[in-house]
C-alpha cells in the first residue's frame, strides 16, 4: 500500500470539498474493495476521505412515492435484513445475501457496492497490461483465459464483467442512484449508471470524481410476490457469479402483467433486454415462454475462447429462475433473507 493522508468528512458538503483538494483523493466507506485494491497497488490514492461519519447516509427511509431510500452508508447486511426491504424488496435481500461473506456484508456499504471494480484476473495482476487499469496498454483477457469474462456489450478494449450482485437486483427493480457533487445533486436511473467499456474501459460509471452517492432510491413496486435471484458460481457460496439472474414477475389471473429480468456476470453492467420483458407481457408463465425470452436476451451474445458455455448457462438460468420466481419459497438457503 502507498502512503496517503487520511481525513474524516463531517458531512456531505465537507466530503465534497475535501475530495476536491487534489486529483489523487478518494472516498472510503467500508473499505472492502478500496483497501484490497490498494494492497495490490492497483489504486494509489494520496488522500483518503473517510465518509463514515456522515449521519445522513446511514438511514433507510420511506420515500414520498411509496418507495424506499437506502442510505449510501447503510451496510449490505443491514439493508438485506431490514424489515421493509425483506417485506417489500425480497429480491434485493436475496441478491445481497448471495454476495461475499457475512463479515464483508457487515462492512460493505450500499454506495461502495455499486462502485466496486471488476474482478478480471488481469486487472488484478499488475504484471500484465490492462486497459482498465492503464488506459491504452491493451487487453490480455481477449486472447487469454477469459472463462469468467463478458459475453454481452464488450468492446475490443475490454471484456470485463461488473461483479456486484446487489446491482443486478437494483437493475431489475428500476432503482435510481442519488448523487451529490460540487455542481449540485442529480438522480441517475440505474440503467444509465454503469457504462459499457467502449473506448474508455477505465471509466466504470457515469459519476464524476468529486461526486458522492448519497442514496439508492427504490420505486414502490418491489415484485414481492414473484421474485427470485439465482447465482451460478464455481462453488456454492462465497464466490462471484459466472452468471446470475434477478427476476421479478407480476401475475394477474395466471397471466404475466409485468416482467423484469436482469443478468449479472455477463457484461460490464447489469444486463436487461426490454424486448424480452415486453414479449412476456400477457403471456402465461410457462417454461416455453421463458425459453423464448431467454433466446431473445442472449441473441446478441459474442463469446471468446473459454466462455462460450455462458450462453447456454445463462439461458437455462433465466428459465429456471423465472420458474422459481413463481414460487419464491423454493429458493435455496444462501440466497435466503431470514430463516
Amino acid at each position, binding site marked *: *500500500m*502507498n*502512503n*496517503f*493522508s*487520511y481525513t474524516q468528512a463531517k458531512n456531505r458538503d465537507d466530503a465534497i470539498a475535501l475530495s476536491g483538494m487534489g486529483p489523487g483523493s478518494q472516498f*472510503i466507506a*467500508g*473499505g*472492502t474493495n478500496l*483497501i*484490497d485494491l*490498494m*494492497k*495490490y497497488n492497483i489504486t494509489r490514492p494520496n488522500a*483518503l476521505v*473517510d465518509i*463514515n461519519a456522515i449521519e445522513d447516509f446511514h438511514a433507510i427511509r420511506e420515500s414520498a412515492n411509496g418507495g424506499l431510500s437506502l442510505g449510501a452508508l447503510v451496510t449490505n*447486511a443491514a439493508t438485506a*435484513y431490514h424489515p421493509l426491504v425483506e417485506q417489500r424488496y425480497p429480491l434485493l435481500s436475496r441478491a445481497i445475501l448471495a454476495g*461475499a*461473506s*457475512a*463479515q*464483508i456484508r*457487515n*462492512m460493505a456499504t450500499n454506495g461502495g457496492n455499486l462502485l466496486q471494480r471488476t474482478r478480471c484476473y488481469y486487472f488484478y495482476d499488475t504484471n500484465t497490461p490492462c486497459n482498465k487499469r492503464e488506459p491504452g496498454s491493451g487487453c490480455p483477457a481477449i486472447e487469454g483465459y477469459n472463462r469468467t469474462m463478458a459475453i454481452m456489450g464488450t468492446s475490443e478494449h475490454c471484456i470485463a464483467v461488473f461483479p456486484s450482485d446487489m446491482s443486478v437486483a437494483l437493475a431489475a427493480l428500476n432503482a435510481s442512484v442519488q448523487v451529490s457533487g460540487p455542481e449540485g445533486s442529480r438522480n441517475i436511473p440505474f440503467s444509465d449508471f454503469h457504462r459499457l467499456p467502449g473506448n474508455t474501459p477505465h471509466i466504470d460509471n457515469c459519476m464524476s470524481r468529486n461526486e458522492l452517492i448519497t442514496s439508492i432510491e427504490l420505486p414502490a413496486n418491489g415484485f414481492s410476490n414473484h421474485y427470485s435471484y439465482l447465482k451460478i458460481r464455481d462453488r456454492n*457460496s*462465497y464466490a462471484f457469479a459466472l452468471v446470475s439472474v434477478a427476476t421479478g414477475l407480476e401475475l394477474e389471473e395466471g397471466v404475466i402483467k409485468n416482467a423484469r429480468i436482469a443478468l449479472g456476470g455477463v457484461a460490464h453492467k447489469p444486463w436487461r433486454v426490454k424486448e424480452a420483458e415486453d414479449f412476456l407481457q400477457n403471456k402465461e408463465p410457462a417454461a416455453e415462454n421463458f425459453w423464448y425470452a431467454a433466446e431473445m436476451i442472449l441473441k446478441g451474445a459474442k463469446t471468446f475462447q473459454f466462455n462460450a458455455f455462458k450462453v447456454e448457462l445463462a439461458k437455462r438460468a433465466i428459465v429456471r429462475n423465472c420458474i422459481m420466481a413463481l414460487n419464491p419459497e423454493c429458493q435455496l*438457503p*444462501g440466497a*435466503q433473507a*431470514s*430463516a
Partner: protein
Amino acid sequence: MLTDQIISAKSMPTLPHKTVSLTVNEKHCTLEVLPWVSLLDALREDLDLTGTKKGCDHGQCGACTVICDGKRILSCLTLAVMKNGSEITTIEGVATGGELHPLQKAFIEHDAFQCGYCTPGQICSAIGMFQEGKALTRAEVKELMSGNLCRCGANTNIIDAIMEVKAQMSHE
C-alpha cells in the same frame, strides 16, 4: 554547526501518525498509528494481540475476523484509523475470568481444529453469527460461516461444534 544539524534533524517532516483510541477486550487503549496500518496489523503488532491471524490479507479467508461494535468484521480490510472510538473483541477476549467460552470448549471436544490457524477467526465469526440470530438450520450455519475457510479439513467438526453450542443456547 552542530546545533544547526540537530535543529534540521528535528524539523524533518515526521510521518503523519494519528491517535486512535480503542476499547479492545474491555481494556481502553490509545495508539499512534500511520493511516495505512490495518486494524489487523495494529492488533497484532502494536497491541501484541497475536491471536487474530493474518491469512490472505485480502478479505478471502476470515482468519482475521474480530467483533467490532457487536458485528463480525475483517480486520485486514479496515484501517485502524477508521475504527477510532470502537469496541473490539478478539479471540483473547472471549473467555471470561479464566473460563473458556462455550465455543472454545466445543472446538476442543469436537476436534474442530488441526493446524488451528483459522480457529480464532472461526470462533469470533461464530459468536458474531449467534448475535445476528439469522442461522437456524445447519445449512444456514454453513452458509453464514462460509467466509471462514478451514484449509486442513476440520470444517465438518467446526460446524458440529457450533451446532452443539447453538443447541445449548436454545435450551437456556
